[in-house]
């Protein structure tokens, strides 16, 4: 597959048991729909778990930013196992440590703290996307 016109893939974890998974999902939506819609594309982690050819090709052909909700790092692991390159990976907990005032709550629906934390995380991811699209960062080979 040739590199995607929206050439940075964003893969959030599918965490369903804790609020951090929802924060990762919301941040990914904010980046791919609002902040950097023209240069990013959301790839569903479930497709990578299944080994979907199109999803694997997308992460193999383009730099991918992962967003994980817990230390197990499912999104980053799955992208790497799918042959993808992960020049930047984010963890919700790291962002929370930088924004202790934004304590998230809620899984089906984030509370105000969770939404603001997702927004802060999305800003960090958007900055990483800018760096990648500007060629400021070297993208490792798969």
């Amino acid at each position, binding site marked *: 597959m040739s590199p995607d016109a929206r050439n940075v893939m964003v893969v959030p974890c599918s*965490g369903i048991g804790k609020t951090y998974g929802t924060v990762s999902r919301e941040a990914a939506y904010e980046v791919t729909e609002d902040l950097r819609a023209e240069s990013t594309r959301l790839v569903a982690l479930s497709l990578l778990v299944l080994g979907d050819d199109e999803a694997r090709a997308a992460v193999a052909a383009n730099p991918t930013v992962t967003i994980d909700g817990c230390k197990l790092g499912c999104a980053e692991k799955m992208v790497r196992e799918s042959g993808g390159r992960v020049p930047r990976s984010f963890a919700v907990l790291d962002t929370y440590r930088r924004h202790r005032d934004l304590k998230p709550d809620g899984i*089906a629906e984030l509370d105000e703290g969770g939404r603001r934390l997702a927004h802060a995380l999305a800003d960090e991811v958007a900055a990483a996307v800018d760096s990648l699209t500007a060629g400021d960062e070297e993208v490792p080979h798969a």
Partner: protein
Amino acid sequence: MPELPNRMVGIVACSGEELAEGTVTRLAALRVLHEMRPDRTVTICLPLFLAGGKGDRAFARFYPTIAVDGCEKRCAARATEQLSGKPAAGVIVSDLVREHGLGRPEGARRLNASGLLAVDATADRIAGLVDELLGAKWDRRTGALVELEPGPAVSAEAPPQAGCACGSGIPVAKVDVDGRTVSLAALPLIFEQFREAGKAPGAEVTQELLATVKVYNDVPAGADEAYRAVLAREYAVFLDHERAAR
């Protein structure tokens, strides 16, 4: 073969981020887990089948599992079967939408009205399947219902020990097999069930233990004798500890 307690039903949602139907699976699963059947259901994040450990991969062999998928790709059902065990039941949101004559769900990030109705229908279907599975006998090897019968009410028990951020972990014990540390999924519960059944250590019981362990774990070819020795030893230690604690 002895049957382990069938306390909870596992729910695995695809959570597909790209489609509104994926969001429907997530919200419906959460509603069942937190509101409709909180004491009878447990979940795991789908990617943990690959990213997690042996206990995570044993999930669908341990719990009768309902796979909840947004579309015909059936990522949750297929990945669960490939990586863990055959789901006992499945729900596909796009099929339910057609079945109920609902409008198309839209808005992966914020569901439209049709999406919210699809959440209602999907949650109801999952909850019904949970009740059905808890009242039925279930074959862990094939994922199939053995027979449907009303059955006794299943007592609510404490959720399994947390093994990941999802709180979905399955009890795992580490044992030494020929100088190598091996993780055996479900071993603590297997020992507990054997103890409750009054099974005293001995060759026959050890063979039975090995057969049960193999349901949840891969035992390498030719390693039966080593595993029998380990299980006999560990079961005796387990019984000693139990006696001392009482």
